[in-house]
């Protein structure tokens, strides 16, 4: 972000703010459309943010951007819309990501495509650049990560590269906002057509392939005279590329070519379109069997050649000595695993310890001070009791509780986690866990989506798009719920503190509670492996596909920006969601506590019915009812439990029927629960059940969105619930046997 970057070139940034007005989210009308493409982890999202002032999620692992992000800015009076495409290595449309990116470059009709290139890995990145140059000649290359290239002794000559590629090449460091101004003007010049390009195009293929291309290209030209590169279209048709075939069939191919939004060509007559497709089919018969390999090899050769010319040779690659040393420890046979647990424990410990005080303060303020004051106001205004009860004791208190309990831990956890992510630790976790994933028949990248699940399961489910194989992706989706999400920690932390931390001497209480929470998180990971294994042996049978994972270089995280973005993007969004769900749930609780028949409230009836089942599971009716009420949001389980305990136990405490409250301190909560008949077993089983139960409603909905299948959504919902019942039941039986 401009305001944070300590740019040496302050004057340009200043100049830019004058002419560049960031518009934030996408406008309906625009003068130019820019597509942002590039290999994974090259800094596309960083460039996107620098351009738009938006805070698209960035992080140091390949494949974060899975959905198309859109934004806009205004420059010299022109409105520019910009689309951030998923990072891909090629445009072969082999995975969902590649398809999204390819279709946009091809069919989205951008006025210019900006390709973000990692200067330290030129050759590999050029492969994509060359593929894009085949499709369109409106391209600008942004040579990013020049700082890293310099540090590692890789010298790229941008001027030479520009000559080779025939399109503008702008060197820069997106993270420091440098090169962005030049990028904007080059991109807009190309978009406006004031700067013409003469893109590098692959030369002749091997004779038998070349013959087919030369034979088909004139047919393409005769049917679609406006396409920029008939050879490419011919090649794709020979390759039986479905999207291109469809574009020929529908006549859409002609529209793409112009690039401009307005010019609309009438589609060629249907007979002509069919003639082209038939010709392609005929030529395909004459192709050599290794046609695909020949073409692929050809494009890699070209990339190598161009890279070779633009890269200074003779420079010794100053290795990544620091990276290697760190990797040696973090992925070591001996220390890799313990270090991972240690890091996890430290993150939780910081979260638990750090959140205590602000949580207490918020609770005192919102519940201890504001709530009585609001009640006073309501009484003074003689608002009917049921209305003030419903709004203040139901809706307000539920919301206040969620804020007090969730905001502080999230505001600590998310930034810490994001720092780790920015630093590049996640791919190492994936590496450490891969052997286990493979044994479970799952994809190594599931480790990444699992980590995302620790923040929010819905986010983890969306992140599974990085997994190409549909079978392995389904496994990752169904088992993501075993990552203990952020909505469930407050429960874990509170119960661990009351029932387990209390067993240890006071000075060690915090540490012991943190260890218990880590234990539950680990159990979740174990369950995830177990269920992945089960799934891949039964309904989702198959072997794990071969897997290669890039370990990106460690990058110093940007502390300030991380704090800012993780608080805005993650914390507030998750909090908002919780509030939206907590408010109506608060209302429901108040209602079931205040509607009564047969002398007892509805809540008391329900708890009474559920109690036998609850006790069998080592829980109780209150907990089960709380989970039913809290389906929309896990966050409100604890306040619901407390309220129902007071209500049905006839205990003193709280402030009336259906009033959701937080006991003033952990001590008071503890006394209350114990008086309600809770034992250590109840506490332990509640922790287990909070880990193993159905996903929250948002996650269920997201699973349905991603799978489009009621069957898999049901399985993903029922599986953890069944496991939860089983585990709690077994623990309760064994516990009672041992105790007896």
């Amino acid at each position, binding site marked *: 972000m401009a305001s944070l970057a300590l740019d040496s070139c302050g004057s340009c940034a200043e100049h830019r703010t004058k002419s560049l007005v960031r518009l934030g989210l996408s406008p309906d009308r625009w003068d130019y459309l820019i597509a942002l493409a590039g290999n994974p982890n090259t800094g596309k999202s960083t460039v996107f943010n620098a351009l738009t002032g938006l805070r698209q999620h960035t992080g140091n692992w390949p494949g974060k951007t899975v959905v198309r992000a859109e934004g806009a800015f205004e420059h010299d009076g022109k409105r520019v819309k910009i689309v951030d495409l998923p990072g891909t*290595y*090629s445009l*072969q449309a*082999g995975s969902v990501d590649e398809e999204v990116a390819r279709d946009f470059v091809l069919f989205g009709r951008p006025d210019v495509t900006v390709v973000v290139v990692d200067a*330290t*890995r030129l*050759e*590999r990145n050029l*492969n994509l650049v060359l593929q894009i140059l085949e499709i369109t000649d409106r391209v600008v290359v942004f040579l990013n990560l020049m700082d890293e290239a310099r540090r*590692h002794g*890789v010298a790229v000559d941008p001027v030479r590269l520009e000559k080779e590629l025939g399109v503008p090449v702008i060197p820069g460091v997106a993270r420091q906002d440098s090169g962005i101004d030049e990028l904007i003007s080059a991109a807009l010049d190309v978009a406006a057509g004031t700067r013409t390009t003469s893109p590098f195009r692959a030369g002749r293929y091997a004779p038998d392939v070349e013959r087919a291309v030369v034979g088909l290209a004139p047919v393409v030209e005769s049917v679609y005279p406006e396409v920029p590169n008939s050879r490419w279209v011919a090649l794709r048709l020979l390759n039986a590329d479905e999207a291109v075939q469809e574009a020929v069939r529908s006549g859409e191919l002609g529209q793409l070519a112009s690039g401009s939004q307005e010019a609309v060509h009438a589609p060629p007559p249907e007979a002509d379109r069919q003639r082209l497709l038939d010709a392609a089919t005929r030529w395909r018969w004459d192709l050599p069997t290794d046609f*695909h*390999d020949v073409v*692929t090899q050809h494009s*890699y050769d070209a990339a*190598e050649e161009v890279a070779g010319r633009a890269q200074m040779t003779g420079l010794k*690659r100053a290795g*990544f000595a620091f*990276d*290697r040393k760190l*990797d*040696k420890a973090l*992925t070591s*046979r001996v220390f*890799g695993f313990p270090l991972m647990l240690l890091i996890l424990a430290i993150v939780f410990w910081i979260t638990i310890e750090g959140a205590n005080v602000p949580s207490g303060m918020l609770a005192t303020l919102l519940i201890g001070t504001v709530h009585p004051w609001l009640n006073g106001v309501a009484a003074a205004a003689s608002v009917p009791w049921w209305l003030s009860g419903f709004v203040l004791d139901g809706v307000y208190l539920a919301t206040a509780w969620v804020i007090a309990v969730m905001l502080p831990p999230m505001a600590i956890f998310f930034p810490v986690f994001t720092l780790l992510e920015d630093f590049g630790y996640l*791919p190492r976790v994936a*590496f*450490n866990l*891969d*052997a286990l994933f*493979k044994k479970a028949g799952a994809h*190594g990248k599931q480790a990444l989506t699992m980590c995302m699940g620790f923040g929010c399961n819905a986010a983890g489910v969306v992140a599974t798009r990085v997994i*190409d194989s549909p079978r392995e992706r389904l496994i990752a989706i169904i088992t993501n719920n075993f990552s203990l999400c952020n909505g469930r920690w407050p429960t874990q932390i509170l119960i661990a503190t009351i029932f387990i931390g209390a067993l240890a001497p006071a000075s060690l209480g915090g540490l012991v509670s943190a260890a218990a929470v880590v234990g539950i998180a680990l159990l979740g990971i174990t369950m995830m492996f177990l269920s992945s294994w089960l799934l891949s042996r039964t309904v989702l049978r198959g072997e*794990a*596909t*071969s*897997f*290669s*994972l*890039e*370990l*990106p*270089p460690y990058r110093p995280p940007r502390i300030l920006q991380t704090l800012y973005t993780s608080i805005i993007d993650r914390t507030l969004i998750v909090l908002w969601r919780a509030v939206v769900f907590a408010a109506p749930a608060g209302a429901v609780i108040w209602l079931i506590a205040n509607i009564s028949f047969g002398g007892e409230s509805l809540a008391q009836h329900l708890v009474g019915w559920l109690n036998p089942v609850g006790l069998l599971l080592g829980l109780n009716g209150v907990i089960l009812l709380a989970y039913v009420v809290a389906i929309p949001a896990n966050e409100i389980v604890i306040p619901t439990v407390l309220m129902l305990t007071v209500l049905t136990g006839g205990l003193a405490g709280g402030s009336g029927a259906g009033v959701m409250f937080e006991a003033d301190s952990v001590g008071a909560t503890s006394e209350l629960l114990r008086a309600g008949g809770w034992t250590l077993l109840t506490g332990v089983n509640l922790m287990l059940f909070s880990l193993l139960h159905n996903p929250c409603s948002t996650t269920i909905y997201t699973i349905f969105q991603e799978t489009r299948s009621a069957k898999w959504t049901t399985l993903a919902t029922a599986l953890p619930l069944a496991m939860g019942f089983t585990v709690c039941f077994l623990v309760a039986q064994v516990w009672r046997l041992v105790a007896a």
Partner: protein
Amino acid sequence: MDLRLPSIPLRQTVELVSIDLPADQAEPLLERGVLPGCRICPVRSSPSGHAIVSVDGSLLALRRETAACLCVRLLTSLQEVG
């Protein structure tokens, strides 16, 4: 003479000759710079036999079976070793 990557000692750079995998599985490797003719060097291995290799300056983790599909050639002359 069919030398595969897993039999190469750590930190010895070799040249990749071919990838013995079906095209759709080889593609992701090619895209990440694992191309016939490139220099490849195993830098570490993990307990489960995973290999971390260095290719074109970046680090790549490969499953054992994948590594076993990479046919390589020793660099002979001093000049080649660089």
